[in-house]
């Protein structure tokens, strides 16, 4: 099956997730779609699999234009997608999952289908206990099951979204072998990835996206330098080294492992200092988010030790961390940071003194003070859900204690316009110069290089690179983010 995408646009408000993408997918090839977070890969694949519809543009299957009404329509046309988190039913058995959507008849045909499932599993070297619940399977096994299910539905185009995150190397080899053999039999495979390695090992052809546009296309064998340049753009001048003016050790993590996210966190040892700004880089779910939450006392480490100002805090909860001056600001502002339906004043009242009565006058004054100091477009009586994203972020900062000793921020400028983002960073750098230790995650390497003094790059739950930002380059960071630390960083490391 040949697929052609013509001038695909997908706009979310002012955001152009896909900005005129044109590409062709040949029959029986493994085609890689490369790009960093936010490049538009996932959006494009969601359009191709019928999950969302494009703002404009055309999808042609074997030369004929189609417009999908939904994912099941796309599946019936032969296009199936394996999502990053497999869309299965964890409490049902392997066989039941496989049967879902498979038969249109009243009878499930359990015997027939269990035989066909075992047969096709054997072909690819997969092994399943048909009656085990899917919740007991690893991510890799769930993928295998989902692939077999999609194949049984008769798909001819298989889209895989970041399939190698969170699976073992053995499972990765099995997966790649299966994909290659499928391609030989005429199935077209679309591999969406930010991992250069995977694309280079598997794909016949690669299309690179950046900021919603195609920046280049290449057939194998690939030139890594060229692909990286397309992925991250041309490198800006390296940042100048700031005076290193770190104070005492504020927080120390020793050999900390934790679960959570896709990759978890494996054996991280880091120390964080007074007055320093540390950026955490990595693709979403590579462990940096878990790291932040562990450092805040929000999720308990599985092993390892954690201390604040020399005090062991390993088994303490967030409220104990708060008492020691730790503040965590989540990125999902209305989901985790603020309380929808409550006014700005009420938020200040919650932070206020613990008394029987709410000191409303005091809270209103505090709210008015925060509003003017942080230039929030709202009144003390405004419910927080009526504020814009930028103003919600300003409010979160205003609610912070005046001198946080350790400030952990999850994507502090996500969704903010340029001016708001710059303003947020003015506040944060001012705090750091007063001695706060600031740690933040960001999907923008540029932001990390611009504001952080030190950067930790996470890949598959591990810190693969730790360096001062002035000793590295965007390319070196980008390569580390994509999981290749061996080649490019060696020469430049201090």
């Amino acid at each position: 099956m040949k697929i052609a995408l013509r001038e695909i646009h997908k706009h979310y408000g002012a955001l152009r997730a896909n900005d005129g993408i044109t590409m062709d997918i040949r029959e029986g090839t493994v085609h890689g779609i490369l790009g960093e977070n936010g490049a538009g890969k996932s959006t494009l694949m969601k359009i191709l699999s019928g999950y969302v519809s494009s703002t404009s543009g055309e999808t042609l299957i074997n030369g004929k234009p189609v417009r999908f009404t939904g994912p099941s329509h796309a599946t019936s046309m032969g296009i199936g997608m394996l999502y990053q988190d497999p869309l299965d039913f964890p409490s049902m058995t392997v066989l039941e999952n496989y049967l879902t959507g498979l038969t249109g008849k009243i009878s499930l045909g359990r015997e027939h289908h269990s035989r066909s499932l075992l047969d096709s599993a054997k072909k690819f070297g997969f092994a399943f206990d048909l009656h085990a619940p899917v919740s007991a399977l690893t991510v890799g096994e769930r993928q295998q099951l989902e692939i077999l299910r999609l194949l049984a539905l008769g798909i001819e185009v298989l889209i895989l979204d970041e399939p190698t995150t969170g699976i073992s190397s053995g499972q990765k080899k099995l997966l790649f072998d299966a994909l290659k053999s499928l391609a030989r039999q005429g199935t077209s495979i679309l591999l969406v990835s930010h991992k250069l390695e995977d694309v280079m090992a598997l794909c016949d052809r690669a299309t690179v996206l950046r900021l919603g546009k195609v920046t280049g296309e290449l057939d194998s064998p690939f030139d890594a330098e060229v692909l990286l340049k397309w992925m991250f753009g041309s490198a800006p001048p390296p940042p100048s080294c700031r005076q290193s003016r770190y104070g005492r050790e504020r927080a120390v993590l020793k050999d900390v492992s934790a679960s959570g996210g896709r990759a978890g966190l494996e054996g991280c040892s880091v120390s964080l200092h007074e007055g320093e700004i540390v950026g955490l880089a990595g693709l979403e779910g590579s462990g940096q988010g878990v790291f932040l939450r562990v450092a805040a006392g929000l999720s308990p480490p599985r092993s390892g030790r954690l201390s604040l100002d020399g005090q062991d805090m390993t088994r303490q909860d967030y409220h104990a961390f708060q008492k020691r001056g730790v503040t965590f600001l989540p990125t999902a502002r209305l989901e985790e940071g603020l309380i929808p339906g409550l006014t700005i004043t009420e938020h200040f009242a919650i932070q206020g003194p613990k008394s029987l009565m709410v000191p409303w006058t005091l809270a209103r004054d505090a709210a008015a003070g925060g509003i003017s100091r942080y230039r929030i477009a709202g009144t003390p009586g405004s419910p927080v859900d009526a504020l814009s994203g930028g103003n919600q972020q300003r409010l979160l900062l205003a609610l912070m204690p005046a001198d946080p000793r350790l400030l952990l921020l999850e994507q502090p400028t996500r969704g903010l316009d340029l001016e708001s983002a710059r303003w947020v960073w003015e506040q944060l750098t001012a705090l750091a110069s007063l001695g706060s230790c600031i740690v933040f995650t960001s999907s923008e390497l540029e932001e990390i290089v611009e504001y952080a003094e030190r950067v930790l790059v996470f890949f598959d739950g591990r810190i693969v690179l730790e360096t001062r930002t002035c000793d590295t380059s965007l390319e070196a960071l980008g390569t580390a983010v994509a999981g290749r630390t061996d080649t490019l960083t060696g020469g430049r490391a201090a």
Partner: protein
Amino acid sequence: MNRLFKGAPPRAALMTLAVLLLTVLLTVAAGAPPFGALRHLILGSVGSWIKFSHVLMVWIPLALCACGLLFTFRMDLWNIGVEGQVVAGAVGATAVLRLAGGGSPPGLWVALAFLAGAAGGAFWASLAGVLKTKGNVNEIFAGLGLNFVAQAVTLWLIFGPWKRPGIASMSGTEPFEPDLWLPTLPGLRISPVGLVLAVGALVSTWWILRRTRLGLALKAIGRNRTASFLHGLSPARYTLAAMALAGGFAGIAGTFQVAGVYHRLIPAISSNYGYLALLVVMLSGFKAGPVPAIALFFACLNVGSIQLPMVLRIDSSLSGVIQGVFVLAFLFVQAWTRRKKSAVKEGHGH
């Protein structure tokens, strides 16, 4: 907010009309004169001072339970166990009143009974609260299970340790001495103590929810548990507090049933007022303001329907049907307007 209030009066009128229409249809289907049934419902509840005093005696426990439920609903807890908490309160109060006698003044015993009732209800609710916070058991299931346990305990007490001398029966325990009964106004079956308690509960609930840190914390946690935790509030602690408060008010209602209405412990001591109070609070939109009026309306329906079987030969459960229909209609209209509103919002987005 403003728009919500603007739409409310016509919506409420429309709803009332629809419910009345349905009631009429139901009575016709039951083979009774429809307007006769409505007339008897009204006359049977507010037709005389005596009847209205009966209504108030139902209103008191309903209002008390509803007050407690306002706390749990405020933090998004579904305290279905309120029914069992009424029973537990009644058991606690009975235990104290059975000890009464000797030289101490009866007023002291009654006061003690109210304390024991509140403690019993709070204890029963805390069980569900601990199951929720420590065992991650949904409060609906915990509460429902405990309701059955409370009922079983009551039956066991009535037929076991607390049985009447000679014969144990469904009519309950031996009645208390009349000086332990809550005093009533001369000629009317109405207890001023009960009224004061219910009004006091309503006012203090309104005040706590609106003015105190506890009220603000419950609201915050109910709206967003995670964010509240990040802002330093402990959801587990406040869950227990809200449950204990709800149980305490329910326990006071149970004590009132024992000391003010039946003067003994009977198997059906709660009269289902706990469940009914859930409906009252839902119909009040989970706010304190409308609770007194809606509780009064429900009490009228309950008392007014008592004479339906005798006069019109239709079952008194008609009042339950009307109450249920009202709540369902309210919830439906609420969900419907919310959906319409969000549809309008989506439309603007595109």
